[in-house]
C-alpha cells in the first residue's frame, strides 16, 4: 500500500492498521525519515518537498511490487509526505511485515534505498543564506546499487 500526502501520520496507528488480525506476521520492520536541523554544516530552518504527482504514485507502486517479488511479505506500506516541513517532522515511513525478521528487515532497507533514487521528489532547503535545492547524493546511488543483486545472492 502506498500513500502520498501532505498530512502527518502516526507510526503506531499505521503499523496497527496494516498488521491487524494477520497472525502469520512474526516480524515488522519500519523506517521513519525525519527532517534534520542541519545539512552539510549549515543550519536548516525548514524544507519544502516538491513531487511529480501521478508519477510518484506510479513509481512507489512499482517499488512496492518489486519488494514483494523479492521477499515473502505479508504486508507493506510506504507513506511519503510533500509540502513544507520543519526539523523533527516526519517525511517518509516504510513498513514491512513478514513471517520472519530477515525478510522484513531486508525489504525495509531495500525500499528506502530504492525509493531515494526512484521516487520523483525534490527538496528545497531553507538556510539562513536563503533557499537551496538539494543536490542528489552519490551515496544514495551506491546504496540503491547494492540491491541490483537479488536477495538470495545479496544475503550470502
Amino acid at each position, binding site marked *: 500500500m502506498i500513500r502520498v500526502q501532505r498530512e502527518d501520520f502516526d507510526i503506531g496507528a499505521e503499523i496497527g492498521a496494516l498488521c491487524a488480525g494477520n497472525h502469520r506476521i512474526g516480524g515488522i520492520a519500519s523506517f521513519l*525519515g525525519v527532517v534534520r536541523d542541519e545539512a552539510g554544516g549549515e543550519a536548516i530552518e525548514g524544507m519544502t*518537498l*516538491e*513531487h*511529480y504527482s*501521478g*508519477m510518484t504514485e*506510479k513509481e512507489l507502486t512499482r517499488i512496492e511490487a518489486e519488494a514483494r517479488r523479492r521477499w515473502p511479505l505479508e504486508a507493506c506500506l510506504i507513506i*511519503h509526505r510533500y509540502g513544507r516541513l520543519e526539523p523533527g517532522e516526519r*517525511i*517518509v515511513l516504510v513498513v514491512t511485515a513478514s513471517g520472519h525478521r530477515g525478510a522484513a528487515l531486508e525489504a525495509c532497507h531495500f525500499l*528506502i534505498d530504492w*525509493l*531515494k*533514487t*526512484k*521516487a*520523483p*521528489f*525534490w*527538496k*528545497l532547503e531553507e538556510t539562513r543564506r536563503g533557499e537551496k*535545492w*538539494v*543536490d*542528489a*547524493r552519490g551515496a544514495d546511488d551506491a546504496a540503491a546499487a547494492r540491491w541490483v543483486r537479488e536477495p538470495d545472492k545479496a544475503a550470502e
Partner: protein
Amino acid sequence: MRMIYFAWLRAKIGVAEERIEPPAEIATVADLLDWLKAKGGGYGDALADLSVVRVAVNQEYVKADHPVAAGDEVALFPPITGG
C-alpha cells in the same frame, strides 16, 4: 506536447507547465532538449548542463534517445532527492 518542469529547472524556466509545439523534425528527447535550449533565456540557463537534467516521458524515466511525439507529457527535472 505538455511540458512539466520541477525544482530548479522550474525556477529557471519560470513556468511549472506549458504546452509546446516543436517542429516535426524533433523526434527524440535529445532533439527536444537541444531545441528548448536554443530558445535561450531561462531555457538556456536551465539546460546549460544536461548532465544534471533527468527526463520522464508519460511518467516513465527515459534516456536521451527516447522518442517524443505530439501527445506526450514530458517532464524535466534534476536528479531526485526525496525520502
